[in-house]
């Protein structure tokens, strides 16, 4: 598993539950060095162990912990750069969804050895979408669900997102395109 993903889980736990929670979870997961380096590759089993330890320690079920992680990634001020990179995908939420198939390629463009889950958008008309997600790690769908919810808020769209019942993926129903102001996005990064 790429260090960037592991590091994101670490930051999520530190920023949401405090660094003492992280130290405890890292120790119980027998994490060498007590933290992840963003630019190293790790055994995927370590990530699994870490998430299992975290769900136990924080008394949360796996699905909602991973969903919270997804939302954290695009909404927490400490992760502003990732949210910005995702916003390059489109000027509105529909544009963003239509660029989602390319997301793994965009990620690889930035970090060549970062492999994201494969994503495939099916547009069903009238604001209804189905996103098929190839789970390249266990729970990727839950992270994607949280992340997409966060992005819908970011664009100011009123949408209902849920796990699909018939295939591994997320069902999206956009109700209102300009429900709220959303958050500003300028191409130029603020200095």
């Amino acid at each position, binding site marked *: 598993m790429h260090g960037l993903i592991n590091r994101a889980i670490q930051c999520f736990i530190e920023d949401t539950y405090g660094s003492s929670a992280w130290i405890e979870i890292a120790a119980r997961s027998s994490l060498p060095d007590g933290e992840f380096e963003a630019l190293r590759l790790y055994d995927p089993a370590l990530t699994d162990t870490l998430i299992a330890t975290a769900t136990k320690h924080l008394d949360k079920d796996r699905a909602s912990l991973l969903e919270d992680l997804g939302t954290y990634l695009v909404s927490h001020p400490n992760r502003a750069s990732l949210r910005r990179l995702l916003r390059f995908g489109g000027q509105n939420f529909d544009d963003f969804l239509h660029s989602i198939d390319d997301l793994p390629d965009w990620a690889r463009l*930035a970090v060549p050895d970062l492999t994201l889950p494969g994503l495939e958008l099916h547009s069903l008309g009238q604001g209804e979408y189905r996103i098929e997600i190839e789970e390249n790690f266990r729970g990727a769908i839950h992270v994607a669900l949280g992340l997409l919810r966060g992005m819908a808020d970011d664009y100011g769209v009123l949408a209902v997102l849920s796990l699909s019942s018939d295939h591994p993926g997320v069902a999206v129903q956009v109700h209102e395109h300009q429900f709220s102001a959303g958050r500003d996005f300028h*191409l*130029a990064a603020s200095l």
Partner: protein
Amino acid sequence: MAGCIHPAAVFALLDRTSPFHLAVDGTGTIIHAGPTLAKIGLAKSPVGRDLLSVVDILRPISGLDFADLHRVAGKKLHMRFRDDPGTRLKGEFCPLRGSDISVLDLSFGIGIVDAVRQYGLNARDFSHTDLAVEMLYLVEAKTAVIGEVKKLNDRLRTAVVDAETRAFTDTLTGIGNRRMFDTEIEKRLAADERVSLMLIDLDHFKTVNDTRGHAAGDQVLRHVAQILTGVTRSGDMLARVGGDEFIILFAGSLDIEQLDLIASRVISGIETPIPYARAFARVSASIGITQSVNYDRPTSDQMLRDADRALYLSKDAGKGIYTIFNPKDGMGIS
């Protein structure tokens, strides 16, 4: 047929496919400006003005007049706005065949990152096929990745410094260790620096260790390290190189009076009884000294050997004594 198409239709097309362009008539007067131009904030709207009064062409030839522009049609042009000389532009001059209209297609080139910030451009200011947005994404992704690399570098640097400090430190006394001494003397001799070497061996230390225990011995060693630290200056180096053996590497050559003063202070300091567990531990010290000026080509091995010989002369002479190695007439005992 181009002749059948109204220029307004061409401009509308260009506004989408190349939103950053200017169109001129046969006299060089600007008759249309793409929507990105509105963002640039030129002092006056460019429409109706003379092209070369708005745009300053720098390369391939500067100072072109409008007629010359047709000669560089299709070539890569380097330009700037006369209103905004800080922003470099690239572009191409393209006559519209079958008419007297020409189009100057513009781009910020590599300056895109600054231009986007300066003019508040957004995705709508670029055509969907323009890779500008992808390029801005890459710049930002690269900045984020380099940020991570920098943080990693800082952590590694700190770890290296910590590891080096640990590797060169005697954990009991906090002063340098044998490795520190070896590294320092080699470094200084290689740089042809003059050094003076003082080898200090404790007397009666074994007795303290045997009768009062190791904790008492450790306390004595720490105490001695403090006394020796007191006689070193900032460029000198102090190390514990054996169980009860210390070395001071003094920077520069010292004269006999200075060596005498330092050695006497060291010996009397160490001979002062050391309080430990409501009693006193008593030790003394023997010293051997040599200096790099004694040798044509000083080496650490030779200097250590001679300091050691001087030290053993001191021990033989009755302890609590220092000896300065003299290369001409043997040893001078004090």
